[in-house]
């Protein structure tokens, strides 16, 4: 999907060239076909090849992912409390890290005296 968002529309050969990785033509074709079947890409026949392009922008896709994640959670209250816990856990870790740096600096300054 990253390739589709960054490169834009293209056929299998375009994507295979753009990726600059030693991937077989058929591997890229299968991946694009699966993304199409999942509804993430749309395709149009152009001459003899399919041209694939993203059905959603990155922002729309992220919104959809978030909506699906929230909808899949058993209760909203539980989700919010989990998020708050995760954020405050991060804050505490950051404060601990800063305090450690302060202690080190204090020791360093004390050693210089």
């Amino acid at each position, binding site marked *: 999907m990253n390739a589709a968002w960054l490169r834009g529309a293209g056929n299998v050969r375009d994507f295979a060239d753009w990726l600059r990785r030693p991937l077989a033509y058929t591997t890229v074709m299968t991946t694009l076909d699966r993304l199409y079947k999942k509804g993430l890409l749309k395709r149009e026949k152009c001459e003899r090849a399919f041209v694939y392009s993203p059905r959603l922008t990155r922002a729309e896709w992220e919104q959809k992912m978030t909506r699906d994640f929230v909808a899949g959670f058993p209760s909203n209250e539980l989700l919010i409390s989990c998020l708050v816990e995760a954020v405050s856990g991060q804050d505490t870790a950051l404060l601990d890290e*800063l305090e450690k740096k302060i202690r080190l600096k204090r020791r360093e300054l004390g050693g210089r005296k």
Partner: protein
Amino acid sequence: MTLPYSVRLVCLCLACFGLVQVVAGSVVSAVAGRAVALAGRLPARSAARLLLGLRLLPAGAGLFAILGLCLPSYFLLEEEAASEPVSWLCVAAALVGGAILTLGVVRAVRALLRSPRLGSPEAIRIEGEECCLVDSTRPVLVLTGVFRSRLLLSPPVLQALSANELSVALGHERAHRTCRDNLKRLLLRLAPLPVPALDRAWAKYAEWAADDAAVKGDANRSLALASALVQFARLNAPNAAFPLASSLLAEERGLATRVERLLAAPAPVPADFPLWLLMAAAAGLFATLLHPASLALVHRLLEAVITG
């Protein structure tokens, strides 16, 4: 549209204010990104001054257009009896100017109304500094008030900070008072400009400048302030709820950067910019503008604005 002498003056002043605001505001919006980048290479206090100056430039230029250009040339060169039509373009510019002024005043009044109402808090002296002890279980260490600022403290802060930490934290708030940062916040509200990046950058450098002033280039004070910031953050101090107040930790987003900056070599406090130089430049500019030839030129320009 024909307007009486005094109404025409008001219309002209507002139109000039509006035009100058739009032009200067567009220029400031265009250079804001570069100014923020340049500020990153300057000492914190100079960076804060540069950003504030740029941020207030459109409003300052608009006021200067009214006080330095419109009023003198209008009163000295416009004949009171002369009836003169005012173009719709001038009226539209005046409406824009009026709208900007009104928006600024509304924002400033709303901010003033949201300032904390203090009853009669207990006054305590810490290091010769008079502080108001607020009876609250929430952590409060805030400088409030625009013209007569007061330092508010609550018991949880007194308990959490050591004597050294408290001393340097109060020094930080004193630096905000010396720099009149709350007044600057009010001016920012009075002068609306849709460039939030400038406001955010100014707030960051104002905090850093207050840190530098409190630390005074001393590594131990620097360490004490870093520690005070972390202790204060541990109290889950609420973010600055009052728009015209300076808190020790206004937003936790910049905490890590501030602490790491304090732990690096403490920044020396730069020398004060000679204010007399600015005053002399302003006086020189006014003297030039009040010269009859300048007034005549300004008057011709204003006639062009009025007639569209």
